């Protein structure tokens, strides 16, 4: 007896060798299965035939144009490769990318100049939130925070690895940090050059939102979930 999922996996070319031969034999011996396989093969062929029209059609100009960067966009890839050639002190493409963000004039050296007590420190090659940002990430709930808090928390959510991540906005910077052990590892850090105090109630501009989109698994936490996560000291979830 071969189950339905195995038949379909066979149709989709998921099996090789003996397994494939075994299913093939079972199909050959069963007219009802043969009919089903024929019907589903035809469906797949029809889907691929119809949708190949999209593949072969010329790409609309508006879409090709969307790929080309506007004049005001700094090419971070070029910045990154230039930096890599120089020998990035950060190591690894991820940190090269973060370095490129810094080079792009986003936050410059300002944030590190405070040394101990500043909002960001470097530990083992990773950028870790410290000072007021760390305090807010550890203790502040989006639902109860003061409108005048120096660092405001936006969304709290889990990433694809199950770790808790939180977006935040301070007067000069905003970003996303994910819990790593007992630290908050910065995954994105952007400047808020044009913001003035009081202009960051949403805790996150579209720039931060894009990072959230690429990190988030499922939906952002609601008030109760955020509170529960705080009670659990921002522990990661077990991945099923």
């Amino acid at each position, binding site marked *: 007896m071969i189950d339905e999922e195995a038949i*379909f*996996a066979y149709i989709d070319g998921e099996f090789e060798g003996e397994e494939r031969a075994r299913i093939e034999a079972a199909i050959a011996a069963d007219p009802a299965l043969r009919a089903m396989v024929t019907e589903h093969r035809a*469906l797949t062929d029809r889907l691929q035939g119809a949708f190949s029209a*999209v*593949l072969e059609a010329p790409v609309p100009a*508006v*879409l090709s144009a*969307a790929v080309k960067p506007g004049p005001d966009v700094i090419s971070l890839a070029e910045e990154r490769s230039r930096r890599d050639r120089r020998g990035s002190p950060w190591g690894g493409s991820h940190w090269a990318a973060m370095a490129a963000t810094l080079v792009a004039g986003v936050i410059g050296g300002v944030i590190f100049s405070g040394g101990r007590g500043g909002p960001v420190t470097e530990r083992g090659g990773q950028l870790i939130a410290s000072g007021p940002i760390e305090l807010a990430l550890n203790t502040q709930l989006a639902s109860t925070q003061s409108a005048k808090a120096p660092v405001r928390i936006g969304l709290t959510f889990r990433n694809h690895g199950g770790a808790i991540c939180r977006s935040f906005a301070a007067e000069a910077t905003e970003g996303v940090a994910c819990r790593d052990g007992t630290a908050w590892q910065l995954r994105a850090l952007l400047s808020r050059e044009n913001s003035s105090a009081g202009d960051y109630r949403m805790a996150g501009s579209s720039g931060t939102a894009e990072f959230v989109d690429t990190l988030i698994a499922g939906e952002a936490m609601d008030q109760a979930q955020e509170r529960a996560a705080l009670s659990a000291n921002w522990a990661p979830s077990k991945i*099923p």
Partner: protein
Amino acid sequence: MSAFEKGVEALLPRLRRFAHGLAANRADADDLTQITIERALRARMQWQEGTRLDAWLYRIMRNCWIDTVRARGRAARIIAPEEAGEHVGHDPTAQMDAKIDLDRLMQAMGKLPPEQREVVALVLIEGFGYRETAELLDLPIGTISSRLVRGRTALLALVKEG
């Protein structure tokens, strides 16, 4: 253009095809493609060189689409449902060319629940393997397999009745 942009440009036809597999109609599909490109360009620092750009872009597109589906789902709770019959199929006597068939299939795909539609699009149309699809959607391979059975069985029934 940088290598990244050239890579995205080269993948545009495939991204458009995937968008047509997900979206309800052609206009929505191209909107989805554009939103995906914009989001990918803004998040480009997140892409790690040496990893598959296609899988990364497919994932962004899928997330963009899910956002739209969720937003529409929320809106649907407060907005009255569309008139029944508004999306009734084409005249069956119409000439069956590839474009008409594409519209028909998109319409049938649109009736599948989102979690089945994305798996059907990725495996049957885009040709991803089960494991690749599982990685792309962050789901166990068994979930891919069972959703695919339900999705394609429902799709076959829809296509037959249409």
